């Protein structure tokens, strides 16, 4: 669906130098040799801090910006050369920019989009009905867009991007500024779209819970480079963060000792509950449970995964991998292995 090879983009900026009116021209590299592929039907979270190059990448994928160098194919098309053909096959939602007509009622914006994309009326009606139902648009279809709340507008934007049945939906910060309930609703809708309709999703976000709920794969970018690429669970392991096994024991017990792979033991309620932080690459939860059971009778167990925020923080702290092809999804061994 998406194939990016050594994709780079730099901008020329002029800035004033200290004295007089002399100006200096500078090259600022926004995206630096980024390579990744996204298969049809995937849901990929593209994350990174402000200025990491997320939006620039999205703009190159959608044909708004022409790459400085490198190659990119979306739906088999060259976005910058075949912008109009590509536009018919993808949908794009910008969280901070509206694609609707400010003064027109939502329903009328949708009608205009039908003409713009030349969608057959019956297909259009069917998809509109589906979105209206799933996103609960009914109450404000006749309201001018400028009078909608942010959450309502966002649901409208997503509908607008889907009416022409795109194969790929790109969302740039879709949940920004939304309240919890709207976020939740949007995420559920997108997850459903991905599993039921097999629409490929790529979304950039600051909100890591978006990724947690929606994306099986995450692509982390910083300063124009891919830092990591893979399923969230695997990144958790590879980044070396400890998982925690929480065991509730039958009776108060002294802190457990001599468990292989356990780095830290914390006890609560007189040792009735013990939290064992363990390194996932040295032992498994199952092995640990067996080992604990040998020392004391277990009442209940649960495993706590490290927070996604911690994973990402760890990734940034570590900087780009020195592997030859950073961020290549099909080469798991050179991703995130400490040198």
């Amino acid at each position: 669906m998406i194939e990016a090879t050594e994709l780079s983009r730099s901008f020329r900026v002029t800035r004033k130098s200290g004295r007089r009116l002399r100006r200096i021209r500078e090259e600022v590299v926004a995206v630096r040799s980024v390579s990744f592929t996204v298969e049809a039907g995937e849901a990929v979270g593209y994350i990174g801090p402000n200025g990491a190059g997320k939006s620039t990448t999205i703009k190159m994928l959608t044909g708004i910006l022409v790459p400085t160098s490198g190659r990119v194919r979306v739906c088999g098309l060259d976005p910058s050369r075949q912008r109009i053909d590509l536009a018919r096959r993808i949908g794009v939602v910008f969280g901070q920019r509206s694609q609707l007509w400010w003064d027109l009622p939502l329903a009328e914006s949708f009608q205009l989009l039908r003409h713009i994309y030349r969608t057959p009326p019956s297909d259009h009606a069917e998809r509109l009905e589906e979105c209206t139902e799933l996103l609960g648009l009914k109450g404000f279809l006749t309201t001018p867009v400028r009078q909608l709340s942010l959450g309502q507008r966002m649901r409208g934007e997503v509908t607008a991007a889907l009416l022409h049945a795109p194969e790929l939906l790109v969302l740039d910060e879709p949940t920004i500024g939304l309240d919890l309930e709207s976020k939740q609703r949007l995420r559920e809708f997108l997850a459903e779209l991905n599993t039921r309709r097999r629409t490929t999703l790529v979304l950039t976000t600051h909100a890591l819970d978006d990724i947690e709920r929606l994306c099986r794969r995450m692509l982390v970018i910083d300063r124009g480079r891919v830092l990591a690429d893979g399923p969230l669970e695997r990144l958790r392991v590879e980044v070396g963060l400890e998982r925690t096994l929480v065991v509730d024991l039958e009776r108060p017990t002294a802190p457990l000792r001599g468990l292989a792979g356990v780095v830290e033991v914390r006890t609560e309620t007189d040792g009735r509950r013990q939290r064992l932080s363990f390194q996932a690459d040295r032992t498994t939860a199952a092995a640990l449970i067996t080992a604990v059971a040998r020392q004391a009778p277990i009442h209940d167990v649960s495993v706590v995964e490290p927070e996604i925020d911690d994973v990402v923080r760890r990734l940034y702290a570590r900087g780009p991998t020195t592997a030859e092809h950073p961020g290549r999804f099909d080469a798991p061994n050179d991703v995130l292995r400490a040198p």
Partner: protein
Amino acid sequence: MADAVTSFGTYRHLVAAQVRGQLSYRSSFVLNCFGQMLAQCTDLVVILVLFSRVASLGGFGVRDVLLIYSLAGLSFGLADLVVGSIDQLPTFIRTGEFDVVLLRPLGTLAQLAASDFQLRRLGRVITALGVLGYVLSTSDLDWTVARVALLVVTPLAGMVIFSSIFVAASSVCFWFIDSRELANTVTYGGSYFTSYPITVFTGWLRTFLAYVVPGAFVAYYPALVLIGRADPLGAPTWLCSVSPVVALLSALGAATVWRRAVRHYRGTGS
């Protein structure tokens, strides 16, 4: 070509939606339209005042000047109606809304022209038509087929020329965002220039506004042919009737500039 036709179909829908919106505020629409009619009248007043003091302007009488004025006003008014919303371009660029334009399966220029269609701009057209009607109905011109054809073609060619000027001048915004004032000197300046016989102006200003910005072909030359007069500046007769060709060339030129500007925005040109 087929693409242009379907694009036009979409343009029509976009425009129609905005017109519906504007007509829903009826009184404000009427007022705005009236304002535009008045704006066009100010030039008319200037001409009438001048002629209350002098008998001829650049060698032309009041009726001839009014003919030129109305043909120019009609051309400008129509162009303003069709592509006038392109003066929103700096806002589109600054707010990043131009990205949204690039995401749609339509030409960028058509989308921008349709982005802020204002029916009130019809006001200028109405004034110009009124003056033209008055001048022609009180003239003793012999209405041959050629004259009638010329009368129909002239405003259309003039509209294309003005539209091209609008587009080319606005394209500068892609390089310098705050260049609207610069664009206005050739658009509104051009409108002012074309309302008078070019004999009124002299030197480089005349050369620039008559031929570089092809203002002389909007109303002056066609008016000469209409009233059957030779150019006092000695332009050959054929030059006076090539406005449609000039219009076509202007359109091609403007399209090239626009394409280049958009390419610059997207990043290859810089």
